[in-house]
């Protein structure tokens, strides 16, 4: 992967990792993986491996950060030193600070913050292995973790990116496509409410391409949403089945 390949997508429309233009990477979701957190989730999105843990709602410390009329969400997106090819310093980088804010803001509209004033929840996101599109995978996992913590929500938040490689608009870029491609459009939505909570664009797209990308990402989100719902239900179905077997 050190040399730049001539083409990111061949004449037949097959990408470097063998996917078609509108194909997602395989996604695996699991809920309730951490015993000490109030809610947790784990996502494998292609080669991305990300853990999300949620604590709270609890009293804010330091107290002056709490708000008199609503709950506060604090979010920490962090990449493990071993998550990328070249060791990453464990200190939060400029990029991680920004992503923490972006993820927090994409989760905030989904939670009923006004129900629990003067409290706060902490969302910790740990990227164990990164391969492009970690912000989207992080949002998907973090939203599941919040639901697992039993915090009332308007909807789950699910995210997926689309982008442009060579001259084609494609779904769900992985690392090489992200770095060598022409544009990247991460999108987070609340699928039942038909609302967008995050929309970014890195690169240049024509208005038509942008629209195709957003539509493609929306479709991708809906596919992941189905998995998200299933993961959440599975956790409780297991105990139900066990009980019925007896």
């Amino acid at each position, binding site marked *: 992967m050190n040399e730049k390949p001539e083409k990111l997508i061949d004449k037949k429309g097959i990408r470097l990792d063998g996917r078609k233009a509108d194909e997602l990477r395989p996604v695996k979701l699991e809920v309730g993986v951490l015993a000490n957190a*109030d*809610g947790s989730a784990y996502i494998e999105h292609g080669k991305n491996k990300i853990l999300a843990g949620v604590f*709270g*709602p*609890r*009293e804010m410390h330091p107290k002056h950060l709490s708000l*008199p009329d609503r709950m506060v969400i604090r979010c920490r997106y962090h990449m493990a030193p071993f998550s990328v090819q070249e060791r990453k310093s464990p200190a939060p980088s400029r990029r991680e600070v920004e992503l923490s804010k972006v993820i927090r803001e994409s989760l905030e509209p*989904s939670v*009923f913050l006004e129900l*629990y*004033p*003067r*409290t706060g929840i902490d969302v910790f996101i740990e990227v164990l292995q990164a391969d492009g599109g970690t912000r989207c995978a992080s949002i998907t996992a973090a939203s599941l973790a919040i*639901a*697992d*913590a*039993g*915090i*009332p*929500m*308007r*909807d*789950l938040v699910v995210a997926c990116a689309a982008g442009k490689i060579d001259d084609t608009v494609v779904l769900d870029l992985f690392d090489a496509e992200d770095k060598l491609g022409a544009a990247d459009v991460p999108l987070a939505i*609340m*699928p*039942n*409410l038909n609302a967008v909570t995050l929309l970014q664009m890195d690169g240049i797209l024509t208005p038509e391409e942008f629209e195709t990308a957003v539509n493609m990402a929306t479709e991708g989100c809906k596919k992941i949403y189905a998995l*998200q*719902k299933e993961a*959440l*239900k599975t956790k*409780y*179905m297991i*105990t*139900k089945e*066990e*009980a*019925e077997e*007896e």
Partner: protein
Amino acid sequence: MKVMPTFFEKKQLVTPGELLAEGDYTAGENTYLEEKKVYAARVGLADVDNKKVNVVALRAFYIPKMGDIVIGTITEVGFNGWSVDIKAPYTALLRASDVLSRPFKPQNDELSQVLNAGDLIVAKIASYDRAHDPQLTVGEPGLGKITRGQLMRVTPTKIPRVIGRKGSMISMIKQETSCQIILGLNGVILVTGKTPEDEELAMTAIRKIEEESHTSGLTDRITQLLKEEKTKREENKVE
């Protein structure tokens, strides 16, 4: 009259954001209404009762309510009262005058000798609203410092299941294990029995209820479990 649709079967497992009903319905517990549509707000089991859509949450946290009995830990001894951790997003306050049942004089009374950090209490929520932390009271029979027994925690939403219909479950456990059980609505349970084994038995039963709270025919299975465990113990004693 046109029949308005609901989009779930009775006791179906639903996730936040799932559309539950449309039209002439109101939002009950753990649901919300938007543009005449009712959505779920928590993971739980959906049910409709008289046009009111409810979700029985499988995972939630405790929010104080006036009149609730809770079990808490003293975290701090203050100038005229104590801070109490009641496993809620808010720290509760217990005033010294409430415990001493007479006017409190700082020069005469040493608060840490009455209740110290780490002590456990059974208390009632005296007041609580959005703007103020909950206040506790122990001025009623059955409330006050806990001196013996074992504590366990369950998800607060499962307390009603431990109580059972009209208290059937809890009275059955009490009878079978001859333990005293105090249920804190904040999800903390105090089990006091004659022997640690009795307590252990009651706790096993409660833990099973928590795990299988969303299944039917639970009371019968718990009764059976307790009977089995008891015979097992009898056998061990004989050996």
